């Protein structure tokens, strides 16, 4: 947890020491999410997926590391850029891909699509499309956990662009006032659509929003899933033990455009390349080798991921179309 002054972020520091057994599964998840996103991008360009498609490529270490700090009973609330969060929480690639295809077998039967994944089985409270609108919802789930003393913690993910909107301000203010077990995680990927930080924030440190509420805060680089897991674990422990919320800002970067329709012309090649150098997947893989994981084992894991995603695509391709839109309007 950082001090009240603007917290500096070390971008290229060494990955925190981890055991191979701790890192390997995180690497596998990140890789699966990367491949899932790549496959959906391909299907989108083939016209098999429609609407808005927001890829999280480059940011995988954040959702993977953060969710790894949770128990299954804990809740996750996310934005429209949530495929990775859903997968990290346990949703299958099949259910996600079939949803993107708008199929009956999709996670939400073709009703929600890319931006609105929900999974009750995994306590994944959904992906939301109105910026900031989901922040109070996360505070509400945490409010319910405190009301029932069920020991659950809620993670709420959002982008730095959401930190200016009223829903975010009110959500964190009430969470701080009523002390509910929630961790607000700002995925600061440095752009809100085409807008860089300096054009959207007077102070380029979102975690400082916590100061006026006496809320604990943290801020760090998000390219190492183990580091993310450890730091989020601190906040999760605080929430579980003291019911106190935390505002965590994790600095990351999206390699692709805001959505498939955005060529991302507002960034220089150099800047993007610079960040790709920090690709969390490459760093994690190198670390695994360094930790003595035999190349063949790594490759086997990678092949396994490849197969998993290919299967998910085939499943989506061959599933029947969505066929129901009236059943879930009014609950009897």
């Amino acid at each position, binding site marked *: 947890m950082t001090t009240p002054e603007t917290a500096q972020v070390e971008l290229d520091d060494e990955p925190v020491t981890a055991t191979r057994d701790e890192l390997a599964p995180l690497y596998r998840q990140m890789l699966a999410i990367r491949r899932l996103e790549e496959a959906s991008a391909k299907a989108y360009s083939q016209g098999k997926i429609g609407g808005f498609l927001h890829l999280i490529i480059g940011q995988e270490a954040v959702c993977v590391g953060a969710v790894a700090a949770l128990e299954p009973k804990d809740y996750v609330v996310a934005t429209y850029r949530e495929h990775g969060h859903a997968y990290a929480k346990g949703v299958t690639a099949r259910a996600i891909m079939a949803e993107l295809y708008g199929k009956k077998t999709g996670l939400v039967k073709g009703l929600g699509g890319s931006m609105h994944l*929900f999974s009750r089985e995994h306590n994944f409270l959904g992906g939301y499309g109105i910026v900031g609108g989901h922040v109070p919802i996360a505070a509400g789930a945490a409010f319910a956990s405190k009301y029932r003393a069920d020991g659950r913690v809620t993670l709420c993910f959002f982008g730095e662009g959401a930190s200016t909107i009223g829903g975010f301000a009110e959500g964190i203010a009430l969470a701080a006032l009523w002390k509910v077990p929630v961790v607000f995680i700002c995925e600061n990927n440095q752009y809100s659509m085409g807008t860089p930080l300096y054009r959207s924030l007077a102070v380029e440190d979102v975690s400082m929003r916590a100061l006026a509420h006496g809320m604990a805060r943290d801020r760090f680089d998000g390219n190492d899933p183990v580091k993310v897991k450890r730091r989020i674990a601190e906040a999760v422990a605080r929430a579980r033990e003291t019911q106190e919320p935390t505002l965590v800002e994790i600095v990351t970067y999206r390699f692709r455009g805001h959505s498939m329709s955005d060529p991302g012309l507002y960034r220089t090649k150099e800047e993007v390349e610079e960040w790709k150098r920090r690709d969390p997947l490459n760093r994690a893989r190198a670390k695994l080798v360094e930790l003595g994981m035999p190349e063949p084992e790594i490759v086997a894991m990678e092949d396994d991921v490849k197969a998993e995603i290919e299967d998910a695509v085939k499943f989506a391709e061959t599933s029947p179309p969505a066929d129901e839109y009236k059943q879930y309007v009014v609950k009897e």
Partner: protein
Amino acid sequence: MPVISYREALNQAMREEMERDPDVFIMGEEVGHYNGAYKVTQGLLHRFSERRVIDAPIAEMGFAGIGVGAAMVGLRPIIEFMTFNFSLVAIDQIVNNAAKIYQMSAGQYWIPIVFRGPGGPAVQVGSQHSQSLESFYAHVPGLKVVMPSTAYDAKGLLKTAIRDDNPVVFIEGETLYNTTWEVPSEEYLIELGRADVKRAGQHVTLVAWSKMVWTCLDAAKSLAEQGIEAEVVDVRSLRPLDAATICDSVKKTGRCVIVEVGWPVAGYGAEIAHQVQKACLDYLDAPIERVTSEDVPMPYAKNLEDEVQPQAADVVAAVKRALYLE
């Protein structure tokens, strides 16, 4: 049968449902220690403690959203808006989250929540505090919208709304809190989506909800003195709407006057007018009349406010137009 106030009826409904179900809680500005800006939550904090009666800061978007999140995971929140004028800063939570999560999640999550509070003009509180926003909420699939006119209806409908698994927008009449009605001491529920004929008559059908039901009953009295028997249909529930009861009446009377306290353009009364002409065109002996407020923001001065709002005399005049008596 005991006669109690509309305010007391609402209070009893919440009290009984909170006794019945520990997952029901109420949250809003001044609902606890202050016992409610309009005293509708009188005594609830004392009875149920701060855990279940939560005073919220001024952050409607925030606490409406907290209600939605709590409802998602199984609680049954009652969110009080001090008045529905203030629901405009929270409407995104109601329209985009409360109303849509059941659909977006393909039925995995549903939102058993009640958004309640007074609506419609009070007296001389000015244009920002004198709005009737029911047509906004009635427009949105996924919501239910209820507006009771009597203490009896208020209690039975609010209890049902609290038990409903869908988000219910429950708009109380800001000027009805002190009105009284017979309310049985035994428990009862009133199904949502059922209109109620508050007065029988064969010459004209008056359709209204909330405060305007009383205005229509007043108008019906003076019409009766002139030999005109008006049937007064209290819609009670705008979504779902009990169009059958309205149409049955119109088929009988052949004349229809719809009365609402809100603005005329795209007011909810237009929806009723459409449904009536669609179902009963051949029965209509005259065009459907609507009586509404003037198409202006509410002025402050009492004399102007009275001019702007529908009065019994305006209803009487509309009935006479519908009967070609002018």
